[in-house]
């Protein structure tokens, strides 16, 4: 497939159709991000859940544990658990 002039590659052979598809895609994104998502975020149920997660330092989109704000609290709690029960996770009572 030959790319359109001035571009590295493109799936659309017709420039007018290409620009129309480009505008339609961004129009859809604008409608969702500027209209739908703010509305969902403002609904009482979602809003209260978002606040709950924020308050606890939970970022559901964290990719790695170091990106989770709550991880410091969790590790502090685990360390405190180890200080109280030094052998708990190494000795089985089985």
């Amino acid at each position: 497939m030959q790319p359109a002039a001035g571009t590295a590659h493109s799936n659309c052979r017709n420039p007018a159709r290409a620009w129309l598809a480009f505008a339609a895609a961004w129009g859809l994104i604008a409608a969702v991000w500027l209209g739908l998502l703010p509305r969902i975020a403002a609904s009482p149920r979602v809003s209260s859940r978002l606040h709950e997660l924020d308050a606890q330092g939970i970022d559901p989109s964290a990719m790695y544990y170091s990106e989770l704000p709550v991880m410091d609290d969790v590790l502090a709690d685990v360390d405190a658990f180890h200080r109280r029960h030094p052998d708990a996770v190494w000795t089985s009572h089985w």
Partner: protein
Amino acid sequence: MSTNQESGGAAADTVSPIAPKSSWSDLWKHEDWWAVWLGGAILAVGAIIAWTARPSDWNEQLAQIDNAKASATSDAKEVQGREKQLVDALAKPMKSRLGKPKDWQQNPLDALIKSGEYNLLPQIVVVAAVCLVLFGIGAAVMGASPGRFAAAFAAVFLLAVLSYVLANHKVIKWANLEYPLWALLVGLIISNTVGTPRIFVPAVRTEFYIKTGLVLLGAEVLLTQLLKLGLPGILISWVVTPIVLISTYIFGQRVLRIESKTLNIVVAADMSVCGVSAAIATAAACRAKKEELSLAIGISLAFTVVMMVVMPKFIQIVGIPPAIGAAWIGGTIDATGAVAAAGEILGKEGLIVATTVKMIQNILIGVIAFAVAVYWVTYEERSAAGVRPSLWEIWYRLPKFIIGFVLASIVFSWVHRSVAGGEYLVKAVTDGCAKTLREWFFCLAFVSIGLETNFAELAKYLKGGKPVTLYVVGQAFSLVLSLAMCWLVLGVVFPHVVEQLTR
């Protein structure tokens, strides 16, 4: 001509092209080595800045924190507050200069600037300048025109900013739809409609950004955190995960007969280890195609959205004890953030167990990426005659960035464990610069993948629905095996841990 060839890459569409032979000049001519130098330089500069930012009473503060931790009467929250203050002081010189868009709900501009509260534009400009200088030097030494690279980089970076703004809507974050997905989408929309402008091409360098980001990620792979949950953590995370990974790979090859072995291993690692970060590391380690990485991430994110909602409900309805249920969630849901959100529904102990199990699994990506890289060059890329390569041949073929990745992990784990105040220094470097820059590098990488990919290529890999079947079967096996192991470990062998955690 393919976009990657223009940008200086050796192969058209792999995350990490094969080096045909090795010579000393690779040290400054090869992207892999440049990733090691740049990642290493960032970590070294970060460590120097954190070290020089130590307060004058550093030793006294460390002693006070140690005493407070040892004292039975001290307030745990107060100790944690002191530790945070110390880390903030060390990280401040970096953190105040580097930034990324914030979360927003109603107005997308809130991601960048909010009157009277914050203005992140200067910090984002500094990030852009740092990236431009670092990657610009690397690209120039490898033969690119600095002027063309700078112009192209400005455009690609703006697309990365836009991707972050899309990804940082709170509802999107809530649904665990991570920024790589939106970076990919932004690139795909351009390349599949009007086409990727030629002026963008010099900065479309997926491998360079991903590998440098992975070297930085190495500093966050702290082997010292492995034993945080003792034997239960090791059994749940480190026994089940490799079994699921290897079984899923074998199932994909022997039963589904998936043509691409790299697609097979990337989907298996993504599903069994820790989602997107594992997919990125494994794809780079085995030189998977960019479309394969995109596909694996798309499948994983789609299933994670469902699992993070369904699993806690199922656990509550069936009446599985919260700690066992949380460990199950930590061992099976791919994404770390989704694990925290799902674990929290089971209560505070649920959050602690789920995120700690996931953290231990996260650390496994260092071992998995290294093992996959060595296995691939030793067994999967052997010569046409089927002769196993010599040790030198393995070294020639090994993606060299993996050395930086593993070395960063070992050095930072050692500092974390052995240097006085090392845990605060390591956290200051990762929080202050490594994490922010790593996220930007991955975002730039996924914008680049989108700019180089067309939908037709992506659809080709979904032929017959085999990757989805692989994911579903692998995940089903993981769910059964993980639940059995969680029940055995926390319900039978270490029930007192659950009891003590609940108290």
